[in-house]
């Protein structure tokens, strides 16, 4: 795989990570942060996919499966907290 291409893909996704994290820092409400966290999880899935292509290690995809299947639990936990606590800024 062309390394320039791969690198630019990596860089795009890294940028995405940073931008998403910026939202997480800015908030302003907790749901905003959670949305950012969810997005970061998705980006990590992409990262893993590209990485699998980069290294030729298909087993890495299992990591992506786990994220795809499990990462949303955190969001559910946050949502549950927000609803029960009744405030979006905590």
């Amino acid at each position, binding site marked *: 795989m062309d390394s320039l291409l791969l690198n630019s893909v990596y860089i795009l996704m890294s940028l995405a990570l940073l931008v998403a994290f910026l939202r997480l820092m800015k908030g302003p409400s907790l749901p905003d942060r959670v949305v950012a966290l969810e997005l970061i999880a998705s980006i990590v899935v992409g990262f893993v996919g590209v990485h699998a292509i*980069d*290294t*030729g*290690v298909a*087993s*890495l995809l299992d990591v992506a499966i786990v994220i795809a299947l499990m990462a949303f639990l955190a969001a559910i936990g946050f949502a549950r907290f927000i609803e029960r606590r009744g405030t979006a800024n905590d």
Partner: protein
Amino acid sequence: MEVVMAFVVATLFSCALYMMMRRSIVKLVIGLILLSNAANLLIFVVSGLTRGAPPLIIEGVDPSPFVADPLPQALILTAIVISFGVLAFAVVLIRRAYEVVKTDDLDQMKDTDT
């Protein structure tokens, strides 16, 4: 890259220490999480970083000697799980402490010392 990661480890470590000196028990717990992450990363970094060669043997192929060192990975895995257990205990502890002491200020919790 190891040196870059060393800076990461040091930052995580500093943050962990800082949070462990706070008076709020919740911050203390965050400090504990940071601390275990720092320790795990330290082991990972100090035993050398290898790109793109996980310690998996492909069926029917002789193992490559250039795969990443599997031993520290096993150690870190153990450490991650252990610190997860410890952390779970710690968070419930602070919750219970808050329940009985009615404050999350650690400076209000010095009856047992003085």
